[in-house]
């Protein structure tokens, strides 16, 4: 029986099998594809047999993973063949080769419909199967009524009707509106009364699909489900062929119980009683038997019964019975049962009153954390996390910390976050909390996000009792030979603030503290250096009387970094150096940080969200979950409204964003020259929200929920997710959410930010977050859109259309019509730049969530500067080029007025940020800038662009600009582009600081604030 019945096909398969390696296989496949292509070209000469044979070969090749990009038409055309053998092949191959989004499928709709309404039963079956497997929206709209008719028709045989039922499942999923038939619920109830169990099984699937959407209409089906269950569990009137290893259709039992879980409760006492009898029988009567299949089948039923019992919130007695069963399961040898025991115990945590019984199994669950099977370990971790409370936190967290050292890479991030959350939530005392977090950083520094260590700092700052202890611990970790950079950050910070509390201990003199911290200095990155500089300044301040040697050492460091290219470092070095010369006044300026306002931790908030996430995803808790997520939004709102005007960012409190720094540097420059003439172009009122957005985004302390959760949830998606997380903010006023869907954050700002970097959030609202990550190579670009559903319900009717300007050729890969709950889908967009232009491509995006239909048009960051590649030219290269491009249209000059005033250095940074690289020293006049870049497009290929800016130090609002390139269009577009950047600088890319009082503010209490981000920004 080993031959296909088609000689050519069998020969081809053997040939492929005999290929020694992948290379030969590809050759053989290519040869065959060539052959098929030629044969199809001359279709007239093909017999039906040959056509069938080639189409099968195509499917085989497709299955092997090769691209089959032709011949779809031939497969589809077989569907309309008059004879069964051809038709059958056409249907099967089409449904395997194509998916619902394929254009060719449309061509077949009519034929398929004819087959469905026709009298030929076998044709009906084929057509229903195809539609059930790959039918899309269009099929749903044009075929649903016919399929419904078949399902309830009394003249159709069961084999057609059960296919019709499942076909409807698909059509309903694609478009829930197609089921609008009056009294359909009665029909549904009748279907559950059918004698044929094949029909009942399929109809039950249909019912599950219907009630998962809305159960209200289908109350009449509830008693029917119970009746089906009774019939099966008593084994009444169940034909032998429907028992599986002695169990009356386990699948139908599971489905019936699943359907019942979508009804909130069972009112009718009789029905309820009968159901509980059945459930009781299942719970008590399921034994572990030798036969694997019988065991699996009976436990499939048992676990579904458990879920139903939990859903119905049965009496306590039955609940504890369930927990007892689960306790037995998590200790059995059979890995499947162990896995499911842990999984269901986690679900059980949602039910009140059983936590204490579950806790009795803690030791066993901890053992599962060491199981050889990662699937089981994951479940054990989730369960331990869920069952943790004050009473057992110490034990569980310590176990998790131990596990962290051996856990596989993929689990560490999730594990770290969970440890941090549990430690904070249930810490019996704060020194324990500090211990845990420091251990966590020590063991898995790479996976500890900034907000975890920010949080420790907050706790230590707010609890005086804790400060000496934390300082001592930090000091101890510094003795280790190699420590993670995060550990350097946190210990340097804590020691800077509190090392003076340790002064009398051995090895803790200011000098010793300084030298042990400074030992790490050469190993850290630029993000840590500013913290270290602050620490040094604080150490100096605490050293009373001053130690001249230490002072000289630290001053030498400050001086060394006065000219650092990183503005943050530079500013701190300059300021601290100046400040530390003030002697006693330093005490006032650099005194201890004030306490943080009490507030909910971002981690805990994540935890709450994670809880809703790990909770039972099935129908049971769906509603309560949605309520939960609303509640989270409410807490956010508090921060949004409580945001203070951010004017505490004086130079002393060390602003954290370089943008603000530039301004303060400017001001100081201006000050020292005695001309305080800087005019802020933006009124402060509009500036402050911008500034806030800017300050908050890099910190992301109020961590967004969705993406972070995904990374908890599915670690594979987490990697990309995490990049997006950084940018996102979830500050949405609640009122707006109630009525219409409001974007979170400014769309325009997000766009501008993305013009200068390659990954970040493009758009976010309460339901969806769209991230983008781009990769640009010459005139090609690949922009991946990450569509993340933030909810526990799917997003439907998702549509994304790219409206691209004529100079861009774009191709967006398939966007699925629905995004499952909490899922993230990636849609790559290929971009080819044909010629220079500043026009922008627009993404027309829409989706439906519940009753909200949301449509947004988003500019895509495929802008001119993305096709720049930095190039630095030397004087020898520059001048000949500059001269050879003489005059318009290749070289254009313009005087630009109304320029936003900025220092030359700042302008240079701005240019560099869009890859127009400033070449220092080329222009003899220090007030001028010369920059160059290479522009790529299909028409121009790689083309050198040169720009010269001549500024007027007396009037920074105007300048003269000269742009040159080898292409007139490019020169023009580039000139306009640069002008746009100079004249109206996007608010998100640059935020103007409100005027800052020039003198340092001594220990004045910070303005009342409840906003964590702003405060932290000031802190760090």
């Amino acid at each position, binding site marked *: *029986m*080993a031959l*296909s019945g088609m000689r050519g096909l*069998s020969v081809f*398969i053997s040939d492929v*099998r005999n290929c020694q390696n992948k290379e030969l296989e590809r050759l053989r496949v290519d040869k065959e594809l060539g052959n098929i292509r030629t044969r199809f070209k001359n279709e007239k000469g093909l017999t039906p047999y040959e056509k069938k044979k080639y189409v099968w070969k195509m499917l085989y090749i*497709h299955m*092997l*993973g090769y691209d089959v990009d032709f011949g779809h038409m031939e497969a589809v055309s077989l569907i309309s063949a008059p004879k*069964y*053998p051809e038709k059958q*092949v056409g249907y*099967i191959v089409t449904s*395997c080769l194509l*998916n*619902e*989004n394929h254009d060719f499928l449309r061509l077949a709709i009519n034929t398929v419909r004819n087959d469905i309404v026709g009298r030929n039963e*076998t044709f009906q079956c084929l057509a229903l*199967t195809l539609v*059930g*497997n*790959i039918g899309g929206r269009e099929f749903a709209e044009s075929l649903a009524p016919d399929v419904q008719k078949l399902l309830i028709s009394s003249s159709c045989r069961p084999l057609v009707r*059960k*296919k019709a039922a*499942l076909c409807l499942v*698909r059509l309903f*999923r694609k478009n829930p509106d197609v089921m609008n038939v009056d009294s359909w619920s009665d029909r549904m109830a009748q279907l559950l009364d059918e004698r044929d*169990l*094949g029909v009942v*099984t399929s109809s039950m*699937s249909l019912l599950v699909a219907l009630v998962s959407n809305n159960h209200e209409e289908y109350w009449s089906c509830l008693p029917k489900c119970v009746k089906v269950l009774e019939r099966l569990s008593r084994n009444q009137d169940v034909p032998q*062929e429907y028992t*599986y290893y002695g169990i009356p*259709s*386990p*699948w139908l039992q*599971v489905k019936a119980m699943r359907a019942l879980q979508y009804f909130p409760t069972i009112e009718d006492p009789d029905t309820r009683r009968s159901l509980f009898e059945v459930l009781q029988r299942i719970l008590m009567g399921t034994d572990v038997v030798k036969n694997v299949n019988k065991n*699996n*089948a009976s436990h*499939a039923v048992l*676990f*579904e019964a458990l879920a139903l019992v939990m859903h119905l919130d049965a009496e306590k007695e039955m609940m504890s019975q369930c927990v007892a069963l689960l306790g037995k399961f998590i200790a059995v040898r059979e*890995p*499947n049962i*162990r*896995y*499911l025991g842990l999984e269901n115990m986690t679900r059980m945590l949602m039910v009140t009153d059983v936590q204490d019984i579950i806790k009795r199994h803690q030791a066993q669950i901890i053992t599962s954390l060491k199981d*050889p*099977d990662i*699937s*089981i370990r994951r479940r054990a971790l989730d369960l331990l996390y869920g069952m943790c409370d004050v009473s057992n936190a110490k034990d569980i967290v310590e176990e998790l910390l131990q596990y962290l050292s051996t856990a596989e890479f993929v689990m560490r991030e999730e594990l770290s976050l969970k440890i941090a959350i549990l430690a904070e939530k249930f810490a019996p005392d704060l020194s324990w909390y500090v211990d845990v977090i420091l251990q966590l950083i020590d063991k898995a520094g790479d996976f500890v996000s900034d907000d975890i260590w920010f949080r420790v700092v907050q706790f230590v700052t707010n609890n005086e009792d804790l400060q000496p202890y934390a300082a001592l611990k930090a000091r101890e970790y510094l003795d280790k030979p190699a420590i993670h950079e995060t550990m350097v950050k946190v210990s340097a910070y804590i020691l800077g603030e509190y090392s003076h509390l340790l002064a009398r201990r051995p090895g803790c003199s200011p000098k010793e503290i300084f030298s042990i911290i400074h030992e790490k200095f050469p190993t850290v990155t630029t993000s840590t250096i500013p913290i270290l500089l602050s620490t040094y300044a604080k150490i100096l301040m605490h050293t009373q009387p001053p130690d001249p040697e230490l002072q000289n050492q630290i001053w030498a460091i400050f001086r060394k970094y006065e000219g650092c290219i990183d503005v943050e470092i530079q500013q701190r070095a300059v300021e601290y150096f100046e400040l530390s010369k003030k002697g006693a006044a330093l005490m006032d300026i650099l005194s201890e940080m004030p306490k943080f306002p009490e507030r909910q931790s971002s981690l805990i908030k994540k935890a709450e969200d994670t809880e809703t996430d790990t909770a039972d*995803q*099935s129908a049971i808790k769906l509603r309560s979950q949605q309520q939960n997520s609303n509640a989270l939004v409410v807490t956010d709102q508090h921060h949004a409204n409580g945001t203070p005007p951010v004017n505490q960012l004086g130079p002393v409190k060390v602003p954290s964003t370089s943008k603000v720094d530039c301004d303060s540097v400017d001001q100081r420059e201006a000050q020292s020259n005695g001309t305080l003439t800087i005019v802020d172009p933006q009124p402060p009122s509009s500036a402050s929200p911008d500034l806030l957005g800017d300050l908050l985004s890099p910190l992301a302390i109020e961590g967004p929920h969705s993406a972070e959760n*995904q990374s908890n949830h*599915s670690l594979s*998606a987490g990697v990309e997710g995490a990049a997006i997380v950084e940018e996102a903010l979830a500050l949405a006023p609640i009122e707006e959410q109630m009525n219409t869907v409001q974007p979170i954050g400014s769309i325009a700002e997000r766009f501008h930010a993305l013009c200068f970097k390659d990954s970040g959030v493009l758009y976010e609202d309460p339901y969806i977050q769209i991230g983008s990550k781009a990769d640009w190579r010459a005139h090609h670009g690949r922009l991946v859109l990450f569509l993340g559903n933030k909810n526990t319900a799917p997003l439907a009717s998702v549509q994304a259309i790219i409206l691209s300007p004529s100079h861009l050729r774009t191709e967006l*890969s*398939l966007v699925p*019509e629905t995004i499952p709950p909490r*899922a993230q889908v990636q849609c790559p967009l290929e971009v080819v730049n044909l010629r220079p232009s500043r026009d922008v491509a627009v993404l027309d995006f829409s989706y439906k969530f519940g009753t909200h239909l949301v449509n947004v048009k988003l500019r895509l960051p495929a802008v001119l500067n993305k096709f720049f590649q930095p190039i630095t030219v030397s004087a020898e290269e520059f001048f000949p080029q500059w001269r050879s491009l003489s005059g318009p249209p290749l070289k254009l000059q313009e005087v630009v007025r109304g320029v936003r005033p900025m220092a030359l250095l700042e302008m240079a940074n701005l240019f560099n940020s869009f890859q127009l690289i400033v070449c220092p020293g080329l222009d003899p006049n220090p007030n001028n800038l010369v920059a160059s870049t290479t522009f790529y497009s299909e028409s121009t290929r790689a083309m050198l662009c040169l720009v010269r800016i001549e500024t007027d130090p007396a009037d920074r609002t105007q300048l003269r600009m000269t742009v040159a390139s080898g292409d007139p269009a490019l020169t023009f577009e580039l000139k306009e582009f640069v002008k746009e950047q100079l004249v109206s600088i996007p608010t998100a890319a640059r935020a103007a600081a409100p005027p800052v009082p020039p003198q340092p503010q001594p220990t004045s209490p910070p303005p009342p604030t409840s906003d964590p981000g702003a405060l932290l920004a000031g802190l760090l």
Partner: protein
Amino acid sequence: MIHFVLLISRQGKVRLTKWYSPYSQKERTKVIRELSGMILTRGPKLCNFVEWRGYKVVYKRYASLYFCMCIDQEDNELEVLEIIHHFVEILDRYFGSVCELDLIFNFHKAYYILDELVIAGELQESSKKTVARLIAAQDSLVEAAKEEASSLSNIIAQATK
């Protein structure tokens, strides 16, 4: 629901794929690559479920073949595990103690059978007997058409003699 069904040999060769949710060719290849990497490397005494991208993949090894079905997180894993076994039993009955070679050379039959078992990612028929009967009926329809064709060509051949 079942999002897709994969049959992969121990060497990582694909023997059958069926997709009930829309995946592009590229995604299909990627999914297969990822999952074979995860599943084929798992030891024999582990559970039959792996968690993958927010879904669960239920798999079982029969001789040299891995049968995999991808389902939603909240679906009943054991139920699906037994759908796999049910499928295998039907294949076994049809081919008469089925082996990998049967499925290689008669992959199209495997597709016919799967279509009688699962539609729209949901179980259609739980009676082996019914499925066997339907497949036999299909086979005889094809046979009948073949005979008819050959007898027709005989008649034509006779007539044109």
